[in-house]
């Protein structure tokens, strides 16, 4: 499997995701945002960070980058596209995924481990979570409060496009287990064809027991087996 990680000015989880991909023997290349074309890849990752300082709106300026045309083409052709944190914000700004990520409800940056209930397993990112459907991953964001109008949310629900919801250890989903105010506790969503996943939590930060867990590894294992 081959992957490309797009590096924007201000990306800062680009190395972390590269380390994770390589750990699972995915052949990875770093692609500069200003490059004219995307090399052939099975998976493209938009990493976390603060592209363009998160100035104006998170993900907004990165979504206007040169390389994005190719990334969009890649996704339209059914290629896998994963946006983590800032990457998710970029995906909503490009319109590849619906909705928008607003500031956290408490108006402060939130960095901690949270529990997630995996809602959709039938996609190439998540099928491994069948064995473990409540997982723990770190979040670290200031704008992770997912918002979409009722119509959009209903569409996501009706078509089973919600990938993860914030929950507690037992998998209960309610207001108390919602760290940032997201509609319906949404932590990650898929597109219709389920080849694009946008998520706020960071699977690449939990791939090793010394880092207090390996629930992130399951996603990379899903990808290589798919």
């Amino acid at each position, binding site marked *: 499997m081959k992957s490309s990680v797009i590096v924007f000015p201000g990306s800062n989880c680009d190395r972390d995701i590269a380390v994770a991909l390589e750990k699972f023997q995915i052949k990875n290349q770093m692609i500069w945002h200003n490059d004219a074309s995307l090399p052939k890849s099975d998976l493209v990752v938009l990493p976390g960070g603060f592209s363009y300082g998160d100035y104006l709106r998170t993900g*907004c300026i990165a979504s206007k980058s040169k390389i994005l045309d190719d990334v969009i083409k890649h996704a339209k052709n059914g290629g896998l596209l994963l946006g983590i944190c800032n990457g998710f914000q970029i995906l909503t700004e490009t319109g590849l995924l619906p909705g928008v990520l607003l500031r956290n409800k408490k*108006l402060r940056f939130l960095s901690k481990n949270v529990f997630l209930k995996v809602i959709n397993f039938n996609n190439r990112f998540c099928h491994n979570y069948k064995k473990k459907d409540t997982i723990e991953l770190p979040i670290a964001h200031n704008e992770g409060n997912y918002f979409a109008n009722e119509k959009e949310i209903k569409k996501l629900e009706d078509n089973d496009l919600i990938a993860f919801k914030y929950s507690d250890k037992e998998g209960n989903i309610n207001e108390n287990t919602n760290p940032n105010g997201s509609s319906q506790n949404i932590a990650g969503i898929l597109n219709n064809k389920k080849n694009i996943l946008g998520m706020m939590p960071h699977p690449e930060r939990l791939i090793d027991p010394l880092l207090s867990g390996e629930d992130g590894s399951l996603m990379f294992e899903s990808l290589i087996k798919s």
Partner: protein
Amino acid sequence: MIVTLKKEVLDPQGKVVSQTLKNMGYDNITNVRQGKHFDIELNETDKEKAKKAVEEICKKLLSNVVIEDYTINLK
């Protein structure tokens, strides 16, 4: 140019500000909403053209139509 959140979108910042003001004793504050303000200097003498350009900029970059409205104010 002012970009504001649509009415139906929750504005947590505005809420906090108005709450704080109430705590400070300003009881007559009924609502606060926070938005962004842009001061754009344009090298364009034709007012109509300038307005058009700014409109375009707003739509393409400065606002997200999913959640925001904008108003333009030419000087």
